[in-house]
Each structure stands twice: as structure tokens, then as C-alpha cells.
């Protein structure tokens, strides 16, 4: 599980997320839960980075799931129709057990 905080926006936030996900996948840790409880802002670059993480994980035979969306991130994913694409969880135990 990866705990993210702050902003996922063009520049450092998006780059850090990309680096983190690539690092996990390179280490063969292909079942990933992103805890977004403390992410209060995300722009189109950040959304693109989440999509990239999702498709890259799938391409490596893994899965990426989202946990604890803040209202702003939840609304943004609904607006962009990505809420139905991602597996989204409100309980950590449910997110973790979904890989079994």
C-alpha cells in the first residue's frame, strides 16, 4: 500500500507518483493500493498519472486500486468517468483482500 499526500499535479507530484509506481513494478510488487486519503488536489496531469499507473500495472499482470478518496478527487473521477474504471475502496481491509 502506498500512502500519498498533498497534491498530484503537473511537475513534482505527478513525477513522484510515476517514479514510485515504476519502482514497485520493477520490484515485482504488482498488486498496488494507492491510499489517497490525504490527497486534496489533483489536476489533469495527476489524473493522467493515475491512469498511467493503472494501465502500467495491468500491463505487468498486476492491479492498482484506490483507497479513501477525498471528496474533490472522488468528484473529479466521477466527472471524468474514471470512477467506473478504477477499483475504488473505502475500507483498507476490503482493498487488500480484493487481491486474493
Amino acid at each position, binding site marked *: 500500500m502506498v500512502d500519498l499526500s498533498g497534491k498530484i*499535479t*503537473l*511537475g513534482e507530484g505527478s513525477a513522484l507518483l510515476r517514479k514510485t509506481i515504476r519502482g514497485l513494478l520493477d520490484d515485482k510488487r504488482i498488486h498496488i493500493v494507492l491510499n489517497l486519503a490525504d490527497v486534496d488536489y489533483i*489536476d*489533469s*496531469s495527476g*489524473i*493522467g*498519472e493515475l*491512469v*498511467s499507473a*493503472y*494501465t502500467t500495472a495491468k500491463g505487468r499482470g498486476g492491479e492498482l486500486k484506490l483507497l479513501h478518496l477525498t471528496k*474533490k478527487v472522488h*468528484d*473529479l473521477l466521477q*466527472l*471524468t*468517468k*474514471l470512477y467506473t*474504471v478504477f477499483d475504488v475502496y473505502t475500507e483498507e481491509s476490503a482493498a487488500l483482500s480484493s487481491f486474493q
Partner: protein
Amino acid sequence: MGTDPKHLEITLETQVESVNLAEEMCLRVAEAAGFGEDDCYKIGMSVREGVINAFHYGNQERPEKKIHLAVDLTGDKMIIHVLDEGAGFTLASVPDPLAEENLLSTSGRGIFLMRAFMDEFDVVPGRTGGAEIVMAKKLPLQDDPGTNGKGGQDHSPHQGA
């Protein structure tokens, strides 16, 4: 906020830092104009997306090109202009990010978000030859706190690209 029209403009470098700078500047104007938290978020995000568009798609991240940002406060709305020095584009050429085949695209949602978050949105040919994004948000009614941007989540976004 008085009724006198106000105009503010700034020329930004084509660099990532300009995105935050533009957003912060417009947020201050929006707050001073009386917009509520939710509207300020939408205005800030729209400015951010407009400048990202100019930085990445318009100016192709070329540092010798500039991004021109202007804000007008009229009696009834806040108007934001973002002008790049690129080749220009038309809204009709922008793919619909909600189309099934584009849902997993890693880019192409900026225009959609601006259209969803602002009351008015258009792209016109700019004086530089590039694209000029023109978007506006109606000022909150001073007498009615219910319209002060705090409950604006219920309107449907309009997507025409």
C-alpha cells in the same frame, strides 16, 4: 468588490512554475471578488488547466515562447484569458475524453475540465497567432449566500468537444 471594471495581466515564462503562479494569482482575485470556496477551486483549476494547455500543447514547452494571462472583473463576471504563442487549435479538433476509446488516455482532459468548471468557455484565434482560451465565471450575488459558490456541485458539466 466595487462595480468598476478591473483588468490585470501578466506575461509568464513557458515553464512548469508558471502554472502555480497563474493559479495563485487568479485565486487571489477570485477571493477578493467574493467567490466562495467551491467556485475558487473551480476557477483555480481552470486557470491551471489553461496554462498547462498553453505550456504543453500551445508553446510545446519551448522556453523562448511566452504565455499571456489576463483577468477582467466586470460588473457581473470574472473573465480569464490565456494566450499562447503556438499554432492555435479549434475546439472541434479536441477529442472527447469521455468517449469509450479515450477513457484510458493519459492526457486530453484539460479542456473538458475548464468547460465543466466555468460558466463560459471558448477558444479563439489570438493576436500572437496562437490559441486564446477565454473563460468566465459569474460573480456571486452579494445578497444571496446560496449562490456564493458553496453548493455548485449539482450542475451538469457540458461537454461539446
